[in-house]
């Protein structure tokens, strides 16, 4: 492979691209539309879980149990009691993706009985504003009820049960946080797949491959320059997606160099796969069909718009045979969980797949006829 040839072809690809308004729209504007659309649809639901996790340090005293039952009866926040210490509670909530938690302090029953003001601690996650609102409303209401009915029969006494709020210790991930790696994956899949399948068949039909076969450019060089172009495009698209996700929806992502391998290997895989699909097909119509059959399941089931872990078990198993799953999972691992070892395995899967598909594509796509 000659770098000069790849560079020359890369210039042609980029010029062709920049002079095509539709292509530009899809790589530069469409990501913002996607992020906005899905962000708006799903951001209202936050994490989707408003379970109120409770640590009862008053050791299930009758009054504390009564208080929790009252909370549960509001049906706004189903109560779930866990046994962790109050010190670890905040980080426990964060690690387990809970956005709200409540601590009932030791001596709750005693203090209330003796009219000594007592404070509950309500943990909320400001990112999940709606669930925080629900939980705070419920706790406020039940505390007021206790102050009025159960404790202070005389109207003059000051309220006994109060609460103060604290924030959930570590990051709780919102839908938008998952959405960014998911949609970057979506772009890595769709942009090269759709255009390469089309290019593979239309360049053959129009005789452009024939034209190129008469030059010293090799098929491997040609495919490499396309891959490099889509890598460059992926970097731009990802930057736009991250930018609009953070700016419009306050998404939290960790920008690490760990992302880079996925932004390179992802396009490497899908440009090669698109070329392979387009080469196997005899006509542009059948090429488009093959492309769609490969692309559509991955578009929805690899963790693009919906987390794989939230899908039924059968679909989860299916997702694990989809190459895009490993790209998106890998990006989630580096951008959200900082789990390098799992990301490395994901990367390895995609890389090996890419090499195989690249070699197959080179072999099966023909410049000239027999």
């Amino acid at each position, binding site marked *: 492979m000659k770098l000069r040839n790849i560079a020359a072809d890369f210039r042609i690809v980029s*010029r062709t691209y920049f002079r095509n308004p539709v292509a530009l729209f899809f790589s530069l504007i469409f990501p913002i539309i996607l992020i906005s659309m899905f962000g708006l649809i799903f951001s209202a639901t936050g994490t989707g879980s408003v379970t109120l996790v409770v640590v009862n340090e008053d050791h299930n005293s009758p009054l504390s149990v009564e208080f929790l039952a009252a909370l549960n009866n509001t049906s706004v926040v189903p109560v779930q009691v866990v046994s962790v210490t109050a010190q670890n509670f905040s980080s426990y909530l964060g690690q387990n993706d809970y956005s709200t938690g409540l601590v009932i302090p030791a001596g709750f029953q005693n203090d209330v009985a003796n009219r000594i003001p007592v404070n509950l601690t309500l943990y909320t996650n400001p990112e999940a504003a709606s669930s925080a609102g629900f939980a705070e409303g419920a706790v406020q209401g039940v505390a007021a009820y206790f102050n009025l009915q159960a404790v202070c029969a005389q109207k003059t006494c000051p309220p006994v049960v109060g609460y103060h709020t604290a924030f959930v210790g570590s990051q709780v991930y919102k839908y938008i946080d998952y959405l960014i790696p998911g949609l970057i994956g979506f772009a890595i899949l769709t942009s090269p797949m759709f255009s390469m399948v089309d290019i593979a068949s239309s360049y053959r039909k129009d005789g452009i491959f*024939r034209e190129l076969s008469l030059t010293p450019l090799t098929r491997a060089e040609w495919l490499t320059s396309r891959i490099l172009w889509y890598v460059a495009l992926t970097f731009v698209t990802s930057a736009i997606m991250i930018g609009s996700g953070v700016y419009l929806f306050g998404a939290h992502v960790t920008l690490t160099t760990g992302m880079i391998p996925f932004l390179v290997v992802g396009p490497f895989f899908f440009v090669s796969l698109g070329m392979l699909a387009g080469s196997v097909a005899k006509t542009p119509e059948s090429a488009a069909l093959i492309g769609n059959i490969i692309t559509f399941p991955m578009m929805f089931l690899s963790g693009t718009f919906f987390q794989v872990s939230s899908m039924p078990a059968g679909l989860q198993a299916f997702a694990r045979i989809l190459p895009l799953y490993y790209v998106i999972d890998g990006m989630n691992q580096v951008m959200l969980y900082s789990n390098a070892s799992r990301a490395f395995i994901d990367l390895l899967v995609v890389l090996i797949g890419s090499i195989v598909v690249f070699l197959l594509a080179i072999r099966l796509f023909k410049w000239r*006829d027999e």
Partner: protein
Amino acid sequence: MSAAIEVEGLVKRYGSLAAVDGIRFTVPPGTVFSFLGPNGAGKTTTTEILEGLRRRTEGEVQVLGLDPWTEGTELHRRIGVIPQDFRFFDKITPKEAIEYYRALFGTKVDPSHLLEQVALSDKANSRYDTLSGGQKQKFGLALALTNDPEICFLDEPTTGLDPQARRAIWAVIRNLKREGRTVFLTTHYLEEAELLADQVAIIDRGKIIAAGSPAQIIEKHGQPARMSVEGSPVLAEYLRMNLGAAAVVEDGKVSVTLSDKGDALKILTAIEASGLPWTSFTTTKDTLEDVFVRLVGQMDEGALKSQGAP
């Protein structure tokens, strides 16, 4: 120097159909060779085999001493090809395309000079999809010259072009020959071949049915020259009686076959001596097109007969 192109016993079969059926010809370097034939005769198949774009079934093919299929990479550095209906990336201009090819071939050609050569300088910065048919062909021609080729293959370069554009392409082809390049030209415009080609081969149904210079082919396969005057059947009868010439009357024209260039003078003298009225004398000679139509027509008749058609 040995031949630029040498073909011996070339066969290309698709299943049981022989698209090219055992042809042979030689193209000397620095000449224009024109390959003629009706549509589907096997022109493009042969051309693509020579260019290394298609694999042959049988036979020997040498282009610049190389086997086009197995030594295609080396060959492609030394030939230039303009396919029938040249296509390129829609959004790329001729200048950019030449720069692209220049980088690929590693040559140092000047794009503006090349575009000047094919008379396309004014469209140097216009994108492919905005060019007319003739301009696109010139674009292809310029691109095919980027690597300073020894042989230029032009597959029907003027098909579908207006007369002006065709003449411009012809000028370029003449220039290629002047520069010492070999030109392999397929066309179905017979006048084009007659004007430009040193050697012509006519292919029909995969077989070469005539070969040689245009003059040789006309000589061999054409009808003799004829002289005709406008006159009456009486004049024709007079010529038959006095000269023993086979004079034919058709549409008020009396025509006589000329077997020798002295004949014309003899006949004219006899006509004048007859005292009969006559006007407007012309001589006609078969063109390559007449020969082509007759030869291909004969092949068609033969084919019909052998298939047992009425």
